[in-house]
């Protein structure tokens, strides 16, 4: 056990800090769907050109192959420099890309991986359906083999980024009459294929990029299947641990800074009674407790990367992280609403108009997307505690 950085770690941190200081865009990510995606592509291209793309992807696939500790350092420096996050590249970098690395053919790897790192292609996820969210194995969208093609009909939902994505990781039922985890196929879908309709879903935040995607006789070449026909469930699950272990790393380490910003806000905000909000002991102690919580989340991030460095991948403990990050975040934004008072409702439907208010609503996205809190508890109960199965 130690908290020390090696001289190479320190040099890595210095190099990352210097590069980020010179390259992080000065302007905020724009609100519009198209403009936002263009911003994300430009940032990813900049990362690639600077040699910083795919920090935890293996070197042989163009990544940096960083250890867990270096990945943590990278995210700490990104947080410090207020660098953009994964945004529209979340699926490509944390799920679709790693899935291709693990299960794709050489041809698929060479066709898709580098273009992700270069910022050329956005990917979206075609897993959830109106009747299959938390219960993913209930999906019904059909894929029928017709010669060298899979013909897809049905509907996906919660397809964030579908309007701007070049590709989609798509999970469909290819064996008629099959049930649950059997008979599914994971296929790469080119979003420009005829028959695909993307329909935006309005959200309570106003600004969002969530969609429903409809498939009407969409013909996808069979060579786009990853893994085997009928083996899609295994392919979809092969990188979930990777996703849980890495996607929330930045959320974890950024929480301490977020709490500090809330403390600053409480010092600045004068209540209608004419006192700083932080003079209220209830507010002060809640903030202090959340600061302690955030330090604990950072400590869990170190445990997480220690596991990655020892065993090659994060354990199911990633579910505990997601559960706690969601909970701490929710308590924080509720407290900020209390601190702010009426101005908290000054909101015009864009994140830029009031970031805390956007975050207040985004807290539900955090606790529902990527495996809802209730599903994370099931995973902990099954895989960490080995309790009797509930289903």
């Amino acid at each position, binding site marked *: 056990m130690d908290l020390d950085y090696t001289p190479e770690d320190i040099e890595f941190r210095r190099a990352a800090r210097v590069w980020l200081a010179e390259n992080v865009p000065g302007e905020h990510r724009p609100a519009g769907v198209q403009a936002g995606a263009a911003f994300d592509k430009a940032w990813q291209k900049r990362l690639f050109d600077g040699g910083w793309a795919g920090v935890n992807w293996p070197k042989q696939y163009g990544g940096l192959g960083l250890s867990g500790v270096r990945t943590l350092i990278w995210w700490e420096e990104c947080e410090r420099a207020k660098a953009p996050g994964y945004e529209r590249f979340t699926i490509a970098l944390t799920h679709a890309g790693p899935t291709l690395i693990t299960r794709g053919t050489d041809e698929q790897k060479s066709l898709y991986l580098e273009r992700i790192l270069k910022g050329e292609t956005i990917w979206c996820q075609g897993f959830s359906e109106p009747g299959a969210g938390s219960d993913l194995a209930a999906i019904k969208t059909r894929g029928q083999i017709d010669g060298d093609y899979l013909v897809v009909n049905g509907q996906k939902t919660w397809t964030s980024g579908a309007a701007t994505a070049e590709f989609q990781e798509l999970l469909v039922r290819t064996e008629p009459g099959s049930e649950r985890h059997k008979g599914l196929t994971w296929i790469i879908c080119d979003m420009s294929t005829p028959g695909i309709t993307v329909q935006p879903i309005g959200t309570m935040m106003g600004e969002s990029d969530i969609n429903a995607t409809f498939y009407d006789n969409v013909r996808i070449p069979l060579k786009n299947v990853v893994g085997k026909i009928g083996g899609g469930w295994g392919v979809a699950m092969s990188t979930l641990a990777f996703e849980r272990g890495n996607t929330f790393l930045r959320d974890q380490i950024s929480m301490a800074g977020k709490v500090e910003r809330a403390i600053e806000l409480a010092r600045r905000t004068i209540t209608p009674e004419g006192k700083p909000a932080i003079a209220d002991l209830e507010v002060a102690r809640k903030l202090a407790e959340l600061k302690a919580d955030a330090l604990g989340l950072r400590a869990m991030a170190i445990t997480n990367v220690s596991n990655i460095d020892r065993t090659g991948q994060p354990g199911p403990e990633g579910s505990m992280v997601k559960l706690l990050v969601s909970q701490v975040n929710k308590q924080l934004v509720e407290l900020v609403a209390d601190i702010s008072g009426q101005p908290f409702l000054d909101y015009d439907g864009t994140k830029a108009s009031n970031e805390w208010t956007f975050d207040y609503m985004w807290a539900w996205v955090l606790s529902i997307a990527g495996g809802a809190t209730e599903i994370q508890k099931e995973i902990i*109960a099954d895989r960490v505690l080995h309790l009797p199965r509930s289903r």
Partner: protein
Amino acid sequence: MDLIPSDDQQQIVDLASAFILNELPLSRLYDAHYDEGLARAQRQSMAELGWIGIALPEEGGGVGMSVLEEALILRELGRVIGPTAIIPTILGAKLADQFGLHDLRGQLLSGEAAAALAIAEEPLSAHADGVTGVARIYDVQDAACVIVIVGEEALLLDASEADMPTVPWLDTFTPVAHRDLAGLRLLGRAPAATTVNNGMLLTAAMLTGLAEGAVAMIRDYAGIRETFGRKIGAYQAVRHPIAEGAARSDHAKSLLYVAALCLHDGRDDAPLQLSAAKVIAHRAASRNADINIQLHGGIGITSDLPAHHFMKRALMLGPWFGGRKVLLDTLLHEPLLTI
């Protein structure tokens, strides 16, 4: 940077848990009462294992390890609601060493005597030959000395000839006296920070173990107890609170390790990390004690089952080396270290 115990540290953990399995299994608490002879024998066994002086240098009669190993052992003891006396005794041995009180140090390291911990019940005042003011004095059995924190000072008082009548007490496995500290001769005084920081770590470690022990107990029960024809662990109303308890334990454990390393390395943010670790571990221990009782159902509130001891111990350790409110008020303004 690594938060996983080294092989050597894991060996300490394994030895501790093997000892505990034999000498201090949770089952010892089924409908049990405090037994002075047993408590003394346990203290001496732990002293023989070197636990009292684990972080003292070998030339001082210790084992020459560090606060990291102390924290690992205390966490194991917490899982089985082990004796709290080891906390003041570890700290007392260090103070005795610092003050050159070699006889006292020897008594504590050998397990012949123990140290007690006084926590103020009214403002205390320290003067040239001792301390005045009323305090609760924890772990008075065989106590040769009492540690007390007054303002910025840690004081060691002589308890060898003092009258320490115990009071009826919720945590029946911790003998506690209630008296004015006046009349206890001063053995030595030192700046408080070292003792307080070390005390926070040991208390947080025991609380983390309590949080983990309570989850382990209810997890085991949920795997065997049946209602409505199913194991209760299959019901989400039961398994979800246990999953949350496990996450709380893991959160507390990671923070405990970071705090231990900060103290070990003498980092500037050690007080911040230690306060946070104690607050989080105390909350985890209290909430996990709650779900352990609640999810056991009726049997959970009986004296037959030791579930209630997790609750009582977590309550008792609350004020040790700074209560929740005091710690929160300090840590709010402590700067986050920028890297």
